[in-house]
C-alpha cells in the first residue's frame, strides 16, 4: 500500500464539458469536415475533367464517323469503259478494273450531272466506290445506274455546317435535288491513311497498334513476371540484387524517347530488323513496359502472406511448386494491375515510335509483324499536323477509337483480375 501512495494524483477530475474542451471538439469536427470536402472536391474536379475531355472528343469526333455522299448517275452502257463483264468474275477483276480509266469516267459523269465544276464536288477517291459497285454487280455495265460516292472534303465540311458560304450554297442546292445523303462512314474503320481526308481510315493504325501491343505483351509480361519471381523468391539478397533493384526502379523513370533511341541503336542498327515495323515498335515498348511490370509484380509477390509459403513448404512442396501453385496465383491480381498500367502507357506512347520510324505515311494495313506500320497515337499526331480542315474531325475520331481500344484492353484485364481475385 505504501507503493501506491507514491503515484502522483491528478489535482482535479477532468471536466470534459468546459469551454476549452468544447472549442477543441469544434476544431476537430471542422478539420474532419474540411478534409472531407477537399477530398470530394478533388474527386469532382477529376470527374469534371474527364467529362470535358469525353464531351469535347465526342462532339468533335462523332462527325468523323459520318460521311456526306453525293448521288452520281453514271450511264455505264454509253461510257467508253473498255471492261469485259466476263472478266469481272473471278481473280482477274481487280486487274481489269485497274486497266479501265474509271477516274476519268467518274469525273465525266459528275460534269455531266452537276456542270463544268461537277468533278470537284467529288472526293478524289470517288472512283474507288464506283469500282467497288461494279465488282459487286457487273450487270451495271449494261445500264444506267446511280452510285453514291463520297463528297469532296469542302462539301463534307459544308454539309456539317462549318464550310465556306459558297460551299454551303452548293450543299443547299444538292440537298434540294435529293442528291445528298449522310451515312455512317464504315470506310473509316476499314481503310488506312491517305492524303485526302474523305478517304482516310483508321484500320491501318488500329491493326498496327494491335500487333505492336501483342509483341509488347508477349515480351514484357513473361520476362517481367519471371524477373520479379526470381528476384523475390530465389535471388540472394546482396549487393548485386540491390544494384539490380535500383537499376530497375531507375529504368521505370527513364523518359520514353530514350527507349526509342535504344530501340533504334539495338534493334535497327545492330540486329537490322525492318524499320517502321510492329515488331520493332513492340520490342521497344516492351523495354519500356517491363520495369513497370517488374516493380508491380514484386510488390504483389511481397504481399503474399508468408504463412501460405510456410504451409506449402511444410507439406513438402518444392520451391517451384510453392511459386506456381500458391504465390503466383495469389499475386496475379496485383501483377495484372501493374500490367494494365504499363500496357496503357505503352498504347498511348508516341515518342519512342517516332525514333524507330513508325511515323511513315503508310496507306495499307500491315500484313504482319515485319510490315511497315503505324500506331494510333502516331496516326493522331500525324493527322493533327495536317493543314487540310477535313483532318480535324478525323483526328478526334481517331482519338475516340484509341479511347475505345484502351477501354477494351483495360476491360479484359480487369475481367481477368477479378477472375483471379481470391476471397479470403
Amino acid at each position, binding site marked *: 500500500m505504501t507503493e501506491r501512495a507514491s503515484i502522483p494524483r491528478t489535482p482535479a477530475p477532468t471536466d470534459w464539458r468546459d469551454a476549452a474542451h468544447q472549442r477543441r471538439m469544434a476544431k476537430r469536427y471542422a478539420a474532419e469536415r474540411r478534409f472531407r470536402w477537399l477530398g470530394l472536391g478533388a474527386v469532382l474536379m477529376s470527374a469534371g475533367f474527364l467529362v470535358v475531355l469525353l464531351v469535347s472528343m465526342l462532339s468533335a469526333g462523332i462527325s468523323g464517323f459520318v460521311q456526306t455522299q453525293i448521288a452520281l448517275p453514271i450511264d455505264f452502257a454509253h461510257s467508253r469503259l473498255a471492261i469485259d463483264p466476263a472478266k469481272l468474275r473471278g481473280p482477274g477483276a481487280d486487274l481489269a478494273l485497274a486497266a479501265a480509266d474509271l477516274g476519268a469516267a467518274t469525273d465525266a459523269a459528275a460534269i455531266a450531272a452537276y456542270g463544268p465544276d461537277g468533278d470537284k464536288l467529288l472526293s478524289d477517291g470517288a472512283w474507288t466506290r464506283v469500282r467497288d459497285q461494279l465488282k459487286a454487280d457487273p450487270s451495271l455495265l449494261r445500264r444506267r445506274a446511280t452510285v453514291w460516292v463520297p463528297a469532296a472534303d469542302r462539301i463534307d465540311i459544308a454539309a456539317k455546317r462549318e464550310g465556306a458560304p459558297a460551299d454551303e450554297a452548293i450543299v443547299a442546292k444538292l440537298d434540294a435535288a435529293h442528291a445528298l445523303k449522310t451515312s455512317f462512314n464504315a470506310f473509316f474503320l476499314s481503310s488506312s491513311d491517305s492524303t485526302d481526308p474523305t478517304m482516310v481510315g483508321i484500320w491501318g493504325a488500329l491493326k498496327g497498334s494491335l500487333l505492336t501491343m501483342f509483341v509488347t505483351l508477349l515480351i514484357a509480361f513473361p520476362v517481367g513476371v519471371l524477373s520479379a519471381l526470381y528476384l523475390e523468391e530465389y535471388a540472394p539478397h546482396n549487393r548485386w540484387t540491390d544494384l539490380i533493384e535500383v537499376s530497375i526502379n531507375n529504368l521505370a523513370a527513364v523518359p520514353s524517347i530514350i527507349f526509342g533511341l535504344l530501340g533504334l541503336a539495338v534493334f535497327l542498327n545492330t540486329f537490322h530488323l525492318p524499320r517502321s515495323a510492329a515488331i520493332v515498335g513492340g520490342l521497344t515498348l516492351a523495354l519500356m513496359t517491363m520495369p513497370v511490370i517488374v516493380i508491380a509484380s514484386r510488390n504483389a509477390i511481397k504481399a503474399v*502472406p508468408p*504463412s*501460405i509459403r510456410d*504451409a506449402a*513448404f*511444410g*507439406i*513438402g512442396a518444392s520451391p517451384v511448386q510453392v511459386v506456381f501453385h500458391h504465390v503466383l496465383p495469389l499475386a496475379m491480381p496485383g501483377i495484372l494491375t501493374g500490367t494494365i498500367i504499363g500496357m496503357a502507357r505503352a498504347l498511348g506512347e508516341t515518342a519512342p515510335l517516332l525514333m524507330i520510324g513508325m511515323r511513315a505515311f503508310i496507306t495499307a494495313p500491315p500484313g504482319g509483324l515485319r510490315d511497315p506500320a503505324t500506331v494510333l497515337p502516331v496516326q493522331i499526331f500525324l493527322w493533327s499536323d495536317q493543314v487540310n480542315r477535313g483532318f480535324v474531325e478525323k483526328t478526334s475520331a481517331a482519338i475516340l477509337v484509341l479511347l475505345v481500344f484502351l477501354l477494351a484492353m483495360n476491360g479484359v484485364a480487369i475481367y481477368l483480375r477479378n477472375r483471379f481475385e481470391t476471397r*479470403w
Partner: protein
Amino acid sequence: MTAASHKISARHVNVFYGDKQAISDVSIDFDRDVVTALIGPSGCGKSTFLRTLNRMNDTIPSARVEGEIDLDGEDIYAPEMDVVQLRARVGMVFQKPNPFPKSIFENVAYGPRIHGLASNHAQLADIVERSLKRAGLWDEVKDRLSDSGTALSGGQQQRLCIARAIAVDPEVILMDEPCSALDPIATAKIEELIHELKGRYAIVIVTHNMQQAARVSQRTAFFHLGALVESGTTSDIFTNPRQERTKDYITGRYG
C-alpha cells in the same frame, strides 16, 4: 534403447541466426507413438528447434544449423537428403491456422497430389475423406467440400491444417503452438485430436500452456535461453523436476 530405435534423435544441435546463437548444444530423442511437449518461456528457442526437425529453417537465409539430427538413423542434414521428401515424412502444423485460399477438398488433396499418392480422383477423394475423418472435421464439412477453406472458423481451420498434414501420411507431426490462436472449446477439440493421433505418429508439440503440456504429452522437454534444461516423462517434469529452473518455471516464478 539404441539411437537408431528412436524416431528422431538430435545430437549437439546448434542453430545460429547470423551471428546470434539461438540454440546451443541440444540433444534429445523423440519416439514413435509418443507426444513430446516442448515448453519454455518466450524466445527460448523451442519453435526454432522444432523447425530444425523438418528443415523449415532452410527458408530463412541467415539461419545455420550444426550438429546431427537423425530420422530413423538417417541424417536429415546430409547432402543426399531430399528436403521435399523429408517434409512429407515430417509434417507440420503452424501457430496460426494457414489454410490455402482454395476449397476444403483442395486444401487436403494438395499434398497427396504433389507427391503422387493417388492415381485417380476416386483414390484422392478417399484420402481426403479419411484425412478429414481422422482430423475430426468430416462431419462438419462433408456437405461443403467445395467451400473455401478460409471460410471456416479458426478451430475448424486448424483441424483442416492437421488434416492437410496427415493426408500425405507422415511419420512425425510437428505442432508449433497449434492452439494459441484458438478459443478454449476449439483448443479442447484439438487436444482430443492429438490424443487420437498419438497411436499413429510421433508428435512434437510446442506450447506455452503448461496445462496443455500436462494434458496431451507423455514426455516433456524444458527449454531456457536456447538450451535444453531438462527432459523426461511429463509426470516427472511436472511433479518432480530435477532442475531448479524447471521448477521455477512450472510453478510460475517466471515465463
